[in-house]
């Protein structure tokens, strides 16, 4: 225990002496959290639309007005030429085209159905998909409204049921996040990822650095045990990581107003275990590799898997099956699931038992591996 205390003091002194590391550890995650938390959203406020109205009827003009009034689309330009519209789309002057063909109103009155054409720039497919949803929703709402004016006999028949007419009233509820607020969903995940990236990088560079500088050999000839050595490397960053996480959660609450429905104590219990895993994986890498350069590339590779395969940005359900298995292996995935469940859904201990158990097993395995891998011999 006494040895560990001395080793810890040495580690803390080293961290204090390198202000660049402390800055990176604390400032980088928090600044990025503030920036990226605002950026990670799929809600498009307003986008430019080109209108080609070939009908020039009150109904077609009403549709265009409705598009503009929705706030989702800004009518950037209008002309009867589809060629001009396509050119504007190609030059990225507009992101969508609405074309209302001839006889739009007449068809609606006569047949009760008429087409309109919507063209989107799907270069950025995500944005195009969102715009399509907005536009089709606005059109459907408009159709329901003009239906009453254009074909009153059918539309007013809702009170007394017509023969054969059947309506299913679908009431939709979005649980846990009814306002569809992206920040509630993204911010906890981004925070976890940022803390994990720093923790993994610091852990993986730590021992191999002493290897490269030659100070590891000096430590090897002292009576320090392997477990003590790993513990001395682990504990300082563990405490700092917890501090950053706590600070980040405070920012998440104050700046992003994310919900905290469940118990914060549960979140921190999980964080205690989780940070052991993240740092442990870093230290394990550090005991395996020979140079800091190698450590960095392994860290880079692992962090990419963490970032892109933990269900943070794209849903795990959409991945091919083999990729879902890789996602299961990512400790980040389990911690993000847990954070979202507790903070956003208000889950209690029993609901998050599984991810918690997975993390605990992970911690035990990774730390054992790190201690065993670190042999006190020189390579």
């Amino acid at each position: 225990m006494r040895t560990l205390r001395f080793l810890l003091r040495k580690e803390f002194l080293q961290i204090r002496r390198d202000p660049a590391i402390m800055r990176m550890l604390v400032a980088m995650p928090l600044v990025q959290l503030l920036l990226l938390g605002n950026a990670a959203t799929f809600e498009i406020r307003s986008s430019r639309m080109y209108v080609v109205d070939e009908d020039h009827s009150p109904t077609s003009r009403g549709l265009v007005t409705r598009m503009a009034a929705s706030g989702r689309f800004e009518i950037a330009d209008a002309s009867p030429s589809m060629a001009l519209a396509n050119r504007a789309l190609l030059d990225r002057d507009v992101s969508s085209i609405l074309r209302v063909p001839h006889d739009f109103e007449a068809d609606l009155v006569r047949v009760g159905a008429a087409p309109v054409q919507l063209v989107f720039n799907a270069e950025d497919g995500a944005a195009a998909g969102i715009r399509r949803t907005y536009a089709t929703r606005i059109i459907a709402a408009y159709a329901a409204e003009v239906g009453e004016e254009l074909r009153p006999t059918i539309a007013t028949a809702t009170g007394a049921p017509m023969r054969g007419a059947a309506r299913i009233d679908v009431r939709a509820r979005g649980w846990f996040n009814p306002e569809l607020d992206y920040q509630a969903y993204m911010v906890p995940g981004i925070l976890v990822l940022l803390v994990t990236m720093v923790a993994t990088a610091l852990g993986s560079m730590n021992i191999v650095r002493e290897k490269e500088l030659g100070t590891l050999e000096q430590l090897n000839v002292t009576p320090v045990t392997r477990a003590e050595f790993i513990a001395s490397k682990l504990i300082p960053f563990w405490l700092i990581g917890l501090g950053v996480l706590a600070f980040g959660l405070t920012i998440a609450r104050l700046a992003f107003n994310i919900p905290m429905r469940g118990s914060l104590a549960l979140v921190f219990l999980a964080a205690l275990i989780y940070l052991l895993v993240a740092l442990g994986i870093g230290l394990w890498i550090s005991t395996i590799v020979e140079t800091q350069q190698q450590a960095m590339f392994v860290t880079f590779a692992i962090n990419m898997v963490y970032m892109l395969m933990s269900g943070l940005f794209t849903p795990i359900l959409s991945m091919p099956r083999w990729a879902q298995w890789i996602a299961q292996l990512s400790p980040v995935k389990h911690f993000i699931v847990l954070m979202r469940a507790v903070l956003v859904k208000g889950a209690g201990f029993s609901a998050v038992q599984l991810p918690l158990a997975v993390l605990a097993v992970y911690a035990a395995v990774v730390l054992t591996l790190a201690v065993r891998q670190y042999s006190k011999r020189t390579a």
Partner: protein
Amino acid sequence: MSAMGGFVVKEFHHILRDRQTLLILLLLPLAQVLLFGFALRTDIRGVRLVVVDPAPDASTLELRGRFAATGLFRIVGVEATPAALAPRFQAGSADQAVVFEPGFGEKLAHEGRAQLLVITDATDPNTGSAMQAYAAAVVQRYEQEIGARGGRQGVRIVPEVRMRFNPTLESANLFVPGLIALVLTIVSALMSAISLSREKERGTLEVLLVSPLKPWEIIAGKVLPYLVLGFANVLTVLGAAWFVFRVPFRGSVLLLLGESLLFIVTCLSLGVVIAAVTSSQRTAMIGALMGLMMPTTVLGGMIFPIESMPGWLQPLTNAVPGKWFILISRGIMLKGVGLAELWQETLILAGMMVVLLVAAVKTFRIRLG
């Protein structure tokens, strides 16, 4: 110039000597583009659906069958009351629930209207609203069908949607250009940052600085071998995009290669600047990795549309080199446009490169003084 030549040869030797690292540098970008190119998808499938059906009848069974038949939904449980839903949603074992009112079929047949509650786990707003739309579409189709059986006509405006440049919204077309930008940014910046900061840490950089080589020659000599390596990476990842993911290359491949070269030089210079302003390998690497990975992914427009970001944040995304390369590569690959349309983006990228190179050389001068 012969001193310069010798220096470049020395740098090549450094890289070639370390076979293991060389192999990593050549294979890692390819492996990552392959792995994440397959894994990053946004199409929603296998929605785990719970049905709450207090009194099953012909209509509810038929509608349940409709949900299962779409292939999008997987019915994971049938309950009699909604009470069991909350724990299931909290534990994350269900994504959506359809709650029928008691006597659903009866009401539909006699009163002409019945109620249906669709509950969606909207923790993820994007997936949540998509699932909601899918469920609504299933119900609507069913509604129209039974309406048609009764001879009812509706008033409908039918949107004909065309997705220009990526008609099927294929996930690979969506993510692969961005993924290439991300991987190239980080690998290039890391490579040059490491090679310079290592010499700095070992003290060999001082030796180089007192040599007759000019600062720009040192930087050029350091960057040149990695430019070759980086270009090899461009070839492998673009090859993967073409052969494996079948991303269309509608524009000029030559132009794309040229733009890639420009982009790599920009990122290599970025690495040099990072190495110049940090004091150790460790800070340089963590700085390069931490400073580039998440910002390039989130602010570069690879996943989240830049138009969806708040107004004050959008100008900041202009500082991300990856953003411009994504615009260029999507333009060439998907839209088939040329330099006539992309000169602005190209100019910005070139400007970035010049600024970064000047900054890199300047920082070295300061050290000399």
